[in-house]
């Protein structure tokens, strides 16, 4: 491949590199199939660690300074946001606008709120830094069984380094779509906890339409209760560096999650998502589908998809995939699916990754019907990304995203 490159690894048993100060060097277990030393210069040091065993702490001081060599940081331009990993963060309240909705409350709550820390804990320094810094958490609480939608917009975070914390709770049997809309400038590290009670049906959309200079590091931690269903959507279009990492623990039997992602990286943009699904209960089901397009010099995307099927998770069904469409020279898409299975009793587990450029035969076919090359390219990209948009389930947002994708495509035509 020329300037565009794709990276894909997969293994039935995964050996993640550790960043854990607590974990000491270990020797290779004898007889474990396929395990071998990594080739990235760690001098034979092979930590054996399952995905759920990563070191966790809410205290930033428990993490060593970020070097960029850590597994969670090695694909990110860490030198460009040392303020978020090493500096003091402003943890004060910020302006929030939300659309009116019955049975959904939006309020600021104290650090002592009982829900904080129940969905997940930081596994890296920027997340812990935000956790250490926030004064109050923004709590979005959903009740009521009727379907409803709310949009919570942040547009005035400013350009000083901030730490933030958000709780989204769906009470048992409640149903809603919560759209977190991010615009304007920002230098933000944040944690978002998503808690689904029994049989709740919640859609969370994190929509990044930041200004070109914005830096946004987010960790979403979700805990999905018995028979509950979480649809989680990450849409990253604007911003300089945007890293949204959703972790979902399928905690109750019969819990279900659909994780969708849509990203369009222009010249110089870094868009990253590290997705982690932990099947921790029987009969749980997960689907992950992330699709991205890249165009322009140094447009960069990273997708890491970890799925762990724990030993309690009998009868689970999981599938994850990532697709990238490379529209020009000078881009780079990393795509790394990892699957770890601790029980043999599963319905299905699979993963797929593909990164490719335009299919010339598709373009030829469309052009042979009179459609100009530009229009044909637009049709193909739109078609490629539409698959994800169509699954969001909010007609208004879907229509808006189609227009936003349109705008990205027109933007790229000018370059």
């Amino acid at each position: 491949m020329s300037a565009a490159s794709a990276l894909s690894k997969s293994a039935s048993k995964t050996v993640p590199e550790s960043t854990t100060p607590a974990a000491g060097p270990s020797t290779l277990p004898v007889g474990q199939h396929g395990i071998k030393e990594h080739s990235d210069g760690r001098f034979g040091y092979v930590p054996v660690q399952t995905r759920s065993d990563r070191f966790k702490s809410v205290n930033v001081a428990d993490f060593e300074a970020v070097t960029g060599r850590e597994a969670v940081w090695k694909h990110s331009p860490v030198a460009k946001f040392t303020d978020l990993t090493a500096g003091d963060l402003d943890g004060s309240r910020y302006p929030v606008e939300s659309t009116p909705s019955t049975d959904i409350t939006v309020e600021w709550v104290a650090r002592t709120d009982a829900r904080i820390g129940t969905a997940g804990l930081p596994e890296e320094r920027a997340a812990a830094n935000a956790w250490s810094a926030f004064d109050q958490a923004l709590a979005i609480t959903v009740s009521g069984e009727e379907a409803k939608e709310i949009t919570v917009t942040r547009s005035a975070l400013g350009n000083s380094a901030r730490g933030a914390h958000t709780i989204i709770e769906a009470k048992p049997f409640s149903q809603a779509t919560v759209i977190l809309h991010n615009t304007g400038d920002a230098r933000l590290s944040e944690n978002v906890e998503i808690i689904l009670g029994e049989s709740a049906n919640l859609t969370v959309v994190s929509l990044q339409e930041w200004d070109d200079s914005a830096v946004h590091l987010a960790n979403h931690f979700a805990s999905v209760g018995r028979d509950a269903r979480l649809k989680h959507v990450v849409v990253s279009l604007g911003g300089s560096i945007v890293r949204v990492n959703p972790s979902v623990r399928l905690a109750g039997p019969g819990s279900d999650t659909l994780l969708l992602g849509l990203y369009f990286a222009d010249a110089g943009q870094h868009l990253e998502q590290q997705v982690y699904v932990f099947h921790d209960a029987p009969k749980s089901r997960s689907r992950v589908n992330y699709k991205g397009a890249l165009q322009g010099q140094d447009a960069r995307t990273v997708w890491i998809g970890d799925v762990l099927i724990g030993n309690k998770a009998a009868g689970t069904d999981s599938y994850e995939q990532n697709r990238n469409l490379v529209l020009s020279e000078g881009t780079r898409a990393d795509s790394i699916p990892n699957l770890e299975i601790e029980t043999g009793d599963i319905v299905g587990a699979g993963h797929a990754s593909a990164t490719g450029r335009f299919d010339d035969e598709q373009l030829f076919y469309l052009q042979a019907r009179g459609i100009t090359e530009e229009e044909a390219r637009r049709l193909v990209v739109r078609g490629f990304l539409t698959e994800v948009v169509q699954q969001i389930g909010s007609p208004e947002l879907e229509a808006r995203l189609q227009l936003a994708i349109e705008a990205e495509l027109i933007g790229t035509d000018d370059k």
Partner: protein
Amino acid sequence: MSVLEIKDLHVSVETDQGTKQILRGVNLTINEGEIHAIMGPNGSGKSTLAYTIAGHPKYHVESGSILLDGAEVLKMTVDARARAGLFLAMQYPVEIPGVTVTNFLRTAKTAIEGEAPPIRTWIKDVRQAMTNLRMDKTFAERNVNEGFSGGEKKRNEILQLELLKPKFAVLDETDSGLDVDALKIVAEGVNRAKANTGLGLLLITHYTRILRYIHPDFVHVFVNGRIAEQGGPELADRLEDEGYDRFLVPSNVG
């Protein structure tokens, strides 16, 4: 009266083994309303001729010309050729994920006409054309060629032929892979298109069986990159009986 003229066309293609000469001086004139069948053994260059007319970038024209009513087609982009009135029904139509048949047809029609078709008559035309080709209504909302069977893909090509109304259409092995029922439906569609618009047709085929349903005015035997023999419909009957053996000199075998 439109005319498509192919003059002394030489075409090569780049392969791993270097440049390979495929067309070696093709001469052919098709008038509006005529049906020409090009028949030939595998590897004789039939499909290369089809794709060269449509402008596929893989094929390199070394010399010769293709004129549509006197205008040089070889200087036109792929989409400009389609807008000028040329159509290629492909042997292996590609899938376009996320683009519905409806959206695709409207976009193509708009591109070819230069303006969007009037919505009411257009929807009626599409429905009628689909009914004629025994295509289910749900077809319109499926993505182009995605998950289509072989027969559905070919019918979708003929649907476009009927709706886009070209002056000349090249059908590249449209009959291949079709059972007799599907073959009849497709042939009916082609005959209907010709009756409605009087287009000229270049029918490329390996077998004679499609010629039972679409009757050619001229038959050309294509061997080793050029036309080896031509005649009327009776030539097809002769090929049916004798095969291509008499055209294949031993040095060409393999």
